[in-house]
């Protein structure tokens, strides 16, 4: 489903975030990327989602070599990948409903069908009652769940989450982890990063450890 072959990522300015990383993630698998802050976890996830391009090596998602895709094709690929951002990336000038509806609007879904799916996604993360609220009015955990609702609303086959349990207390973190487990159980390929041991234990999935941008010995 997702293959990294000798991938390196160098940012403008020379910082090398990833070096010679090769990882295979099978369809329907759940994988946790671990490592200390600055190890390259976020970069790896962004490369898998087509948000950034590798400097060298090859990233293949769903059989498509991302390096060979043009800007437009890459954008269209991003529509099929759900991404939960570490900093949420919610829009605070609109309701929870409209935030979750954004990917559907981009995909050009009709208003009624979109509303139906948005409500289903909000229900899934337990935020249906807050549909008309502004995200500002939500707690950190609720904002995280709103972000998850937005990531799954388009029914992606791949769900990627960058530190979804970061800054959350244990109860909230547990609920979030259970959500990802439930998505994985219905066949969604899940790739998430975390450095929280409790969450890792609860996920009970394969781990890919990064250290200084390289794969750490297993």
């Amino acid at each position, binding site marked *: 489903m997702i293959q990294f072959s000798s991938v390196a*990522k160098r*940012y*403008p300015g020379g910082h090398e975030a990833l070096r010679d990383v090769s990882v295979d993630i099978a369809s329907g698998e759940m994988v946790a990327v671990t490592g200390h802050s600055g190890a390259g976890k976020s970069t790896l996830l962004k490369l898998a989602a087509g*948000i*950034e*391009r590798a400097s060298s090596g090859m990233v293949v998602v769903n059989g498509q070599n991302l390096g060979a895709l043009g*800007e*437009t094709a890459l*954008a*269209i*690929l*991003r*529509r*099929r990948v759900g*991404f939960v*951002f570490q900093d949420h*990336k*919610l*829009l605070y*000038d609109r309701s929870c409903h409209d935030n979750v509806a*954004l*990917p559907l*609007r*981009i*995909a*050009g879904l009709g208003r009624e069908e979109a509303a139906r799916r948005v409500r289903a996604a909000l229900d899934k993360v337990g935020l249906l009652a807050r549909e008309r609220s502004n995200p500002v009015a939500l707690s950190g955990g609720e904002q995280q769940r709103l972000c998850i609702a*937005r990531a799954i609303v388009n029914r992606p086959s791949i769900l990627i989450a960058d530190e979804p349990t970061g800054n959350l207390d244990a109860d909230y973190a547990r609920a979030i982890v259970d959500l990802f487990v439930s998505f994985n159980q219905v066949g969604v390929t899940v790739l998430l990063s975390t450095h929280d041991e409790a969450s890792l234990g609860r996920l009970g999935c394969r781990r890919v450890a990064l250290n200084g941008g390289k794969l750490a010995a297993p």
Partner: protein
Amino acid sequence: MTWARLHLLALAEAMRRFAAQPLASGFSIVVLAIAIALPVIAAMALRSVGAAAAGIDTDPHVNVYLALDASDEDVKRVGEALKAHPEAAQVRFIPRAQALAELKATSHLAEILATLDRNPLPHAYTVRVRTTAAERVGNLRTDWSKIPKVDQVLADFEWAGRLGRWVRFGNRLLAAAWLLLGGAVAFIVGHLIRLQVLTHRQEIEVSQLMGATAADVRRPFLHHGAVQGFLAGGLAVALASGLAAWTGYELRALTPDYAMELKVVFLPPMETLTVVLGAAGLGLAGAWIAVARELKRFSVKA
């Protein structure tokens, strides 16, 4: 999703953005409308002058005055010589008695003329000529001055040529104004759209992360720019027409005092349409440039 549906959604989004900031959108449209109205007003003024000038007989005429002592025989001979000239299109004889009668009828000199014991006016020919070129008219004058008993040859249509040149000068001035103000409109729209883009910066970034293509991001802004230009163009034509109607009322009151008829000429429908659609096009162009610049800056790719 069909192309038409994409654009319909983008148009709806553009209208939503208009509605979200009614005051700012309104001011922007008024600023643009004033910029567009200026050359429209200038075009109307020039047309009005042109129309008044068209009412004046500007066909080139040359007057040939005969000597006072010219006999009927001489008159006939000169007439034939003039008619035979290849540059003469039409030759009209004005007998001295008729000239005097016309002068008495059309001027306030009747009393003075009545005191004269004899007619001071000569026989004359008015010749409509086929050219206005200075050199050829000069040749005509030389040729015809040589005809015996011809006293004077006057080509008094230089003023008509001058009027034509003034109108052409006005047209050029107008073209320059269109160019400058058209550029201004594109830049103003570009700037306004750029502000719009900056306001929607976060939405654009998140949309791109969620899979919006550059075209998806651009589309509502293009509609916004085009609609803004279209409304401004319409308002500009309305402003100019209102102004023309208002000044036209006074101008009509003045008209009887002058030989030429002065009246305000409105832009014909086709040109009105051109102004409105042109403004929409400039709005579109401005939006395109502004969004392209900002898209490059916000590019998700490293």
